[in-house]
């Protein structure tokens, strides 16, 4: 065996080292040191995040199963940043009364799911993709059930678990059809073997794969679990589910669709995605309008945001890939900003409905301010990053120069206006409603403050510092061979 192939996967190995250190700390350190475990993990992960920014060698490992390229490297670095923000938000929660006994497991499972997502992003073989997907989704079910004293947490976990198994069975069925057609699991071999075999079996295979991954991304016909799970799961897990899990699945989805099924782009999956995007954005928006619980509200908002992420995939060109990665980066900061505020308020007062936020500006001006820019960014109001990410996603889709896609972008634009309404409802509740605020002035933990400040800075700066986009564009250009088949 050639051990030098491990050199192209420093990010995975670094993550495993972090996991092992956390595991050893959890197992062998005396009880009085255990309270520092969350801080220790976060600090260690912070170091590792900095380390993961160093460029890696491109190449293939394990007989072409695992690919490391600039694009996967950048995607993993983006996921690491998001993970660091999630960890910062969860420090105080992990030390709370009911969770403290099991905080070690919380961090270990979280790090392992991230490892699964890295495999998913790097996978160039259906087998590794499937293993990565399951490594990412199985521990998440356990994490959703983490608040043992809350009934909702268990219900959410049960719903997540059943839909996850159901979707993976459908995904497997799709993969078995692909195997029957082409006799291999390797993406490159599949791409050439599927060639121009336009058969009903291939269409069924594409449909099943899209459905299976669509569950993970909570695209619309497969979105029914999202709101319940987001509401019931602990807020730290919800924020992780909504950004990191979604971002990695979107990237892996892009690679499978353009690399394996690239030959049937115009005939088959373009139109599937076309319908899915319209449904996802519209239904996500319409249901978000009527939610009063903020976690449910953000669940539907994240469904409609997933539709915008899919616009980067339907474009199927390097500009689409760039804009998708950029969208995920911006979405991480905006959504985690909103979740940081919700988590901080929920931890101290247990209040999560929009009505509770009436007049929040008077009692907690900084929390209200962070929430406001997060909402503005999610809605896409100009000075903030959300505007630029939406702009680039639309630009990428328009580059296909296809009338049908023009109509799709128009529908997405109209939906952006609808989404403004409900995002601004939250802002209105916080700033304009004059009622007596039911939330007293809170004092946030330093970790929560750091998380919020980082999110706010990200939201403001990522849009303005244009070199980030240029850099991601260069990264995507290096992977342009992905799109050979389109």
């Amino acid at each position, binding site marked *: 065996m050639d051990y030098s192939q491990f050199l192209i996967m420093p990010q995975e190995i670094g993550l495993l080292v972090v996991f092992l250190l956390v595991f050893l700390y959890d197992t062998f350190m005396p009880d009085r040191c255990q309270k520092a475990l969350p801080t220790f993990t976060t600090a260690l992960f912070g170091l590792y995040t900095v380390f993961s920014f160093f460029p890696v060698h491109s190449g293939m490992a394990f007989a072409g199963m695992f690919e490391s390229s600039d694009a996967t490297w950048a995607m993993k670095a983006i996921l690491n940043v998001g993970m660091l923000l999630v960890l910062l938000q969860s420090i105080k929660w992990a030390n709370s009364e009911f969770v403290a006994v099991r905080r070690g497991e919380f961090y270990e499972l979280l790090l392992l799911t991230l490892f699964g997502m890295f495999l998913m992003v790097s996978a160039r073989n*259906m*087998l590794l993709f*499937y*293993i990565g997907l*399951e490594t990412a989704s*199985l521990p998440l*079910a*356990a994490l959703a*059930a983490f608040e*043992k004293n809350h*009934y*909702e947490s*268990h*219900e*959410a*976990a*049960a*719903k997540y*678990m*059943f839909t*996850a*198994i*159901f979707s*993976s*069975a*459908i995904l*497997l*069925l799709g*993969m*078995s*059809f692909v*195997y*029957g057609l082409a*006799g*291999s*699991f390797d993406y490159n071999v599949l791409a050439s073997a599927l060639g121009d075999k336009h058969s009903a079996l291939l269409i069924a295979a594409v449909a099943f794969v899209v459905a299976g991954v669509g569950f993970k991304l909570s695209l619309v016909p497969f979105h029914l679990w999202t*709101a*319940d799970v987001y*509401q*019931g799961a602990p807020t730290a897990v919800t924020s992780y589910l909504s950004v990191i899990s979604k971002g990695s699945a979107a990237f892996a989805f892009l690679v499978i669709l353009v690399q394996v099924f690239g030959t049937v782009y115009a005939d088959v999956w373009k139109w599937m995605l076309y319908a899915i995007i319209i449904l996802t954005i519209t239904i996500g928006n319409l*249901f978000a309008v009527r939610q009063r619980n903020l976690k449910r509200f953000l669940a539907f908002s994240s469904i409609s945001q997933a539709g915008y992420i899919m616009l980067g995939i339907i474009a199927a060109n390097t500009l689409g890939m760039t804009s998708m990665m950029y969208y995920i980066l911006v979405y991480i900061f905006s959504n985690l900003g909103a979740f940081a505020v919700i988590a901080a308020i929920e931890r101290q007062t247990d209040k999560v409905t929009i009505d509770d936020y009436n007049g929040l500006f008077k009692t907690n001006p900084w929390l209200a301010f962070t929430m406001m820019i997060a909402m503005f960014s999610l809605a896409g109001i100009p000075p903030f990053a959300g505007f630029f990410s939406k702009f680039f996603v639309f630009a990428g889709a328009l580059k296909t120069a296809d009338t049908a896609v023009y109509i799709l972008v128009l529908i997405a634009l109209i939906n952006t206006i609808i989404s403004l309404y409900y995002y601004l409802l939250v802002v209105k509740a916080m700033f304009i409603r004059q009622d007596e605020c039911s939330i007293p002035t809170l004092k946030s933990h330093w970790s929560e403050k750091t998380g919020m400040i980082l999110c706010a800075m990200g939201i403001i700066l990522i849009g303005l510092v244009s070199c980030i986009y240029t850099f991601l564009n260069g990264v995507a250009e290096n992977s342009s061979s992905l799109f050979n088949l389109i």
Partner: protein
Amino acid sequence: MYLIPSLIMFGCGVFGFITRKNMIAILISLELMLNSVDINFVVFNRFLYPDQLNGMFFALFAIAIAAAETAVAIAIIINVYRVAKKVDISEITKLKF
């Protein structure tokens, strides 16, 4: 030929998943779906590509992962039962629209 039982199994699994009210029964239906797909892999391998072992290996991995999934699912069902004292999904409806 061998694909017919696997498709019937998959159909039964989907049907059971949708109609059953007991969580254990739902889990059994899910297992049925996962196992029918394993048959698919092995059959394709044996009859279409007899000179390789890809499909068999995939089936092995899929079985192992299905076992892990069942373990987690049962743990969660037990948790729900402890808190709610029931395994009937029509009564586990606290979270909804």
